[in-house]
């Protein structure tokens, strides 16, 4: 049984039909990526999974349980964490307070303390800046913080929305390194990206989303060789 199973979901913004029957599965331990151009519906898919949007049709199953339309704040108690698009750090709280907010859903004090260490070893920069207000961090540091904050919820499934957005290439590399590291430690990852090349190089499998529909689905290696993907998303002729 797949960890996350999305079955033919249709999501609307008012009258606009944003997702026209998206289906995908994520197996435990995988990194799965969802690539596509601007406006293809990537973020909408994530927002539908996390309950910020409710689909009109279709179902979402997480570990055998139907979570369609579940309130967003309950999902985190099922150990699903999300790193929102554009980072979304709490700009006026310090780095440490941001991480504490990430552990909001938990009660095990010792576990939280050891997870602080884990996040700090993953992102040493955050440790240096732990007393600093998050709004004053650089874009890359904010991305690290948002990712670290999601890790504080001790998720089994981590949903990442465009972690490379607006970052310098050297930082993109280090963020993706961290993603691979997190996955190795046992967290399943669903990664939404525009930077298809980076995403496909770390993911096991990939889905290609176009105007609200999945048009392709394959192993990452195969997708990289796919002529249409090369043309449309990898900038090769």
């Amino acid at each position, binding site marked *: 049984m797949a960890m996350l199973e999305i079955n033919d979901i249709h999501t609307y913004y008012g009258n606009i039909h944003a997702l026209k029957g998206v289906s995908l599965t994520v197996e435990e331990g995988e990194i799965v990526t969802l690539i596509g151009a601007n406006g293809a519906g990537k973020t909408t898919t994530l927002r539908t999974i996390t309950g910020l949007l409710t689909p009109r049709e279709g179902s979402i199953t997480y570990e055998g349980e139907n979570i369609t339309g579940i309130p967003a704040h309950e999902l985190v108690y099922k150990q699903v964490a999300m790193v929102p698009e554009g980072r979304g750090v709490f700009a006026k709280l310090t780095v440490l307070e941001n991480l504490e907010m990430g552990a909001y859903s938990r009660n095990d004090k010792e576990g939280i303390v050891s997870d602080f260490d884990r996040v700090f070893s993953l992102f040493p920069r955050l440790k240096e800046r732990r007393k600093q207000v998050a709004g*004053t961090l650089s874009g890359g540091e904010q991305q690290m913080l948002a990712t670290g904050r999601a890790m504080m919820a001790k998720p089994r499934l981590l949903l990442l929305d465009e972690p490379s957005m607006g970052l310098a290439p050297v930082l993109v590399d280090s963020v993706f390194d961290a993603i691979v590291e997190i996955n190795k430690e046992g967290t399943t990852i669903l990664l939404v990206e525009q930077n298809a090349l980076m995403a496909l190089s770390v993911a096991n499998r990939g889905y290609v989303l176009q105007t609200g529909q999945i048009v392709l689905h394959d192993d990452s290696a195969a997708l990289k060789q796919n002529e249409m993907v090369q043309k449309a998303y990898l900038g090769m002729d």
Partner: protein
Amino acid sequence: MIKTLQENFQKIQKFALLGGIVAIYLVAVGMVETFAQRNLIGTSLSLGHAFLVLGPIGVGILIAQAMKESETKSIYVAGFLAGALSSVSLILFNIVIQIFVIQADPDAVFYLRNMFVSFTPTAFEFLTFGQGMVLGNILLFLFFGLMGMLGVSFLRFPDKIRRGWINSLIWVLAVGLFSENVAQILRELFGPGLGKIIFSNKSMNPVAAIILFAVVFAFSYFGLKKEASDKWAAMPEEKQKKGRVFIIIMAILFVAILPWLVGLFLSQALFIIGMYVMMGLGLNIVVGYAGLLDLGYVAFFAFGAYTMGILTTTGALGRSDLNFWMALPFAMLIGVLWGLLLGFPVLRMRGDYLAIVTLGFGEIIRILALSNWLAPFGGGAQGILHIPQPEFFGLSMNSPQAMYYLVVLGAVLAAFVTIRLRDSRLGRQWMAMREDEDVAEAMGINLIQTKLLAFSIGAAFSALAGAIFAARLGNIFPHSFNILISINALALIIVGGLGSIPGVVVGAIILIGLPEMLREFAEYRLLMYGMLLIIMMIVKPDGFMPEARRSQELRDEKDTLPKQAAGTEG
């Protein structure tokens, strides 16, 4: 020096024009003339003068800022020039009055004063110092020049003198402005003798003013404050602790005897301040912590007042014979319930939309209270009369002083609850929600619960204030619950510093207390209010007493920006 002046002449012109516009505006709306009736020092320096010179002093400050690099002497000359030039608009004003008002026929078809009511011979008299057209205008010109130099001196005096200079001026002006109140306090404390020496004719004695100036100046010059704080820091832990207890006891004593010192009228003002502190603390939870812009806060105030009225009145509308203390919890409960009821429909709204809906809510409640439909319950336009004063162990609390204690108690309770909530898990939830609702939800925060709690706790304090208000006045009418109360409460927490508890108190004193003390200028209240808000937003956007978190954010930005620039990434 001449060269520097030539180089900067454009700036001088620009600032002089600005100062001139400010000066003529203050005169033309009649503020200067009205304020001239309140003397600050002796009979020669009035509040009108203080307002008149705002323009040239501001010009001087601007000049000193703009010409930071130049040598001191030329800055003073530039300040004098700019200040003096800013008087040109007033000289023109004098000429206009001379020709079109003083020498004109009041019954003529075109009579200037029909349009500009403040263009009076008295204003002319005031602006020319009673010296007539030629000499008066020359004096005005020179006087404004000196004021421009005064403005420069605020920035250019040597550091050691500067602070004392500014502090003493502020002290003297403040004591002069509140002569009557200070005199009243001195009378209560030391008998009638001292007050009579310092104050005469409702203003400060010039000699006393000079002495006060010297004392404050000496204080600043010799760094007595710093010396005291150094001594304090050098004291052993044990002693500091005792000292702190002592200070707290003194503060409590001060708050306790305050209404007896300031007399009946100001006790009433203190009561109103306390009421607004209570409301401000409640609104601070909604706006400051939870970030929900609520413009209909007056509705809960009205609910508290009406609940108190209906439950306790001895008039025809009374529905029970509860006393004040028994009705108080009901008033708060009703506030909480309506907080929830308002909360539900606006759960999905954010920012501006929320503000509009709550604004409407506040108005709806007022109009409903006014309606015939609800008149059998709330009395419609006639309101509810005969609301009894609270009794305390058989003693009727019918004096402003007694009600002041009640309101202070309520405010302390509100402050205590606010502090405890802020530092709790709920406080964190509010803050996270204020920053980003979606992310807060993704962290596992139940937004519905968090928002409703903010609305209902805020409403409870407002209802409490309303209930006390009803009992104090003894009668309530729908028109008492207009939107201005919401605006006042919101403005005072912004001026004080959003999210800051001492800020609420400071904001209430400035925005509610000052207008009460300056009652005779009530017609300019809203104008001053607007001016103050605009100036605050430009000069001190985070309020007089910013919350630690917000100021930390502003400071950090300055501290870390260079660091970031030096780093490797952007």
